[in-house]
Structure formats: C-alpha cells, structure tokens
C-alpha cells in the first residue's frame, strides 16, 4: 500500500460519493458541491495511480492542474445559471425533480 | 530526526481530525467557523513539517498560501454568508 494507491482508492470512493450526490440531491447549490467533489475524486485517481515507486509522473500532474482551473470555470458558469434560474422562477431545483 | 518530525506531523493530523469532528458538530453556527481558524494553524504546521520529511522545500510556500487563504475564507464567510434572522436559535 503506497501513498499513491491509498489516495487513488480514496479518490474512487470520493468519485462515487460525488456521483451519488449529483444524482440524488435536488438542491442545485448542493448539486454543484457534489459535482466538485466528483472532480476532486477523479483528480486523486489520476495522480495517485500515476505514481510508481514514489516517483511522480509530471504529465498527469499538468493535466490535473488544467483540470482544476476548468472545474472552477464550470462551477462559476453553473452558479451564474443557478442565479438566473432563481431570479426567473424563484426556485432552487430543476422542474423534473421529485424532492424539494 | 526525520522519524520524530513525521511523528509530530501525524500527531498534528490526528489533532486536526478530532477537532474537525468536534467543531463541525458544535451547537452554534460559530462553531462551524472555528474550523477555518483550526485549519489555518494546524494545516500550516503539517505542511511545514512535511517539507523536510519529503525533501520538498516548495511545501513551505504552500503553507504560506494555506495560511493566507484560510484567513480570507474565514473572514469572507463571517462577513458575507453568515446571516441569520433575529430570534432564531440553533
């Protein structure tokens, strides 16, 4: 059990937690949080599995660095959409959802 | 020497985990904010201790950024989002 493997395992659990959150939670702000957790899990899997014998592979690290920036941009866009939706319809859930 | 530094880092992480659980379960909304204060100091300590263990001097810079951003996050939360109507107790 090396460091990379432990964090890759944690990343896999984190990813499934995030997917469950995105699917099951109706509140849109919380859904954005779950989406971010999902992305963090994927990043951990990428960097953790790329580490062999404690030597880090720089290519997945550069990819993850880009991915973090993209995730922030996606979060900002999603938040702008949620604000607009709330201003137009006054609710914080999508119309097809059952709860909330 | 490296073993002792790593042991101190592990001890600080255990402290952080216990205090995190205690602060997140606290009765008032202010207890949730204690977490920002906690991670500003303890997280900085852990990163500074990890720098000689892993032979990565750049971790000291990460510690600086962490200290700064914990402060910014905590103050932004206290100023911006933490509003409550009068008479509501939790």
């Amino acid at each position: 059990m090396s460091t990379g493997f432990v964090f890759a395992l944690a990343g896999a659990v984190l990813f499934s937690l995030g997917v469950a959150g995105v699917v099951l939670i109706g509140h849109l702000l919380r859904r954005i949080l779950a989406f971010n957790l999902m992305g963090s899990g994927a990043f951990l899997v990428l960097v953790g599995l790329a580490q062999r014998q404690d030597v880090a592979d720089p290519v997945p690290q550069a990819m993850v660095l880009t991915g973090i920036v993209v995730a922030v941009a996606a979060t900002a866009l999603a938040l702008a959409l949620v604000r607009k939706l709330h201003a137009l319809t006054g609710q914080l859930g999508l119309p097809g959802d059952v709860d909330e | 020497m490296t073993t002792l530094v790593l042991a101190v880092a592990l001890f600080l992480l255990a402290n952080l985990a216990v205090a995190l659980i205690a602060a997140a379960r606290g009765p008032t909304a202010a207890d949730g904010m204690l977490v920002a204060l906690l991670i500003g100091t303890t997280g900085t300590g852990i990163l500074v201790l990890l720098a000689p263990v892993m032979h990565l001097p750049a971790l000291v810079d990460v510690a600086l950024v962490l200290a700064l951003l914990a402060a910014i996050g905590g103050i932004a939360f206290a100023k911006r989002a933490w509003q409550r109507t009068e008479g509501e107790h939790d």
Partner: protein
Amino acid sequence: MIEWLSMALLLVGAFFFFAGTVGLLRFPDVYSRLHALAKADNLGLGCVLLGLALQAESIAVALKLLLIWPLVMAASAGISFAIARRADRLGITPWRQERP
C-alpha cells in the same frame, strides 16, 4: 546540542497543539473555544517553526520559516475578531457559571 534543542521544541509545539484540541473539546461556549484555539495553536506553531528553523541548512530557509509565524498570527487574529464580533452581533451570549 542544537539537535536536542530542536527535538525538544518540536515536542513542546506538539504539546501546545494538543492543549488547543483539549480546550476545543472541553470549553463551554464559542468565545472560550476561540480563545483556546487561537492562543494555544499559535504558540504551538511558533515552537514547531523555531524547532524546524534550527535544523534548516541555510539562514535564508530559516528566516522564511520564521516569517510564516507573524503571518499566521495576523491571519488568526483577523479570523478570531471576525468570528467573535459576528457571534456577538447574532446574540450568542457568553457562558457564565451559575451561582447557587
């Protein structure tokens, strides 16, 4: 000699962090918990930083380590002030010992 002094400082720092955690777990209200965390943890961090600076290889690295301490102290003073003022404004009353 310097080796022993550095080890002793690291252990003292760990003790102060432990004291801060015990204070967080045992104290009755927000203000005293804030006091325990801000004071004990910053002292512990100062001891740890001094202990690490003693075994740094160059004077520039040691100065950089010691420079973190005032920054963290200023930051935690700011956060403590913001939390305490906000809690006071929201009407959280300080704890007092009941007199029989």
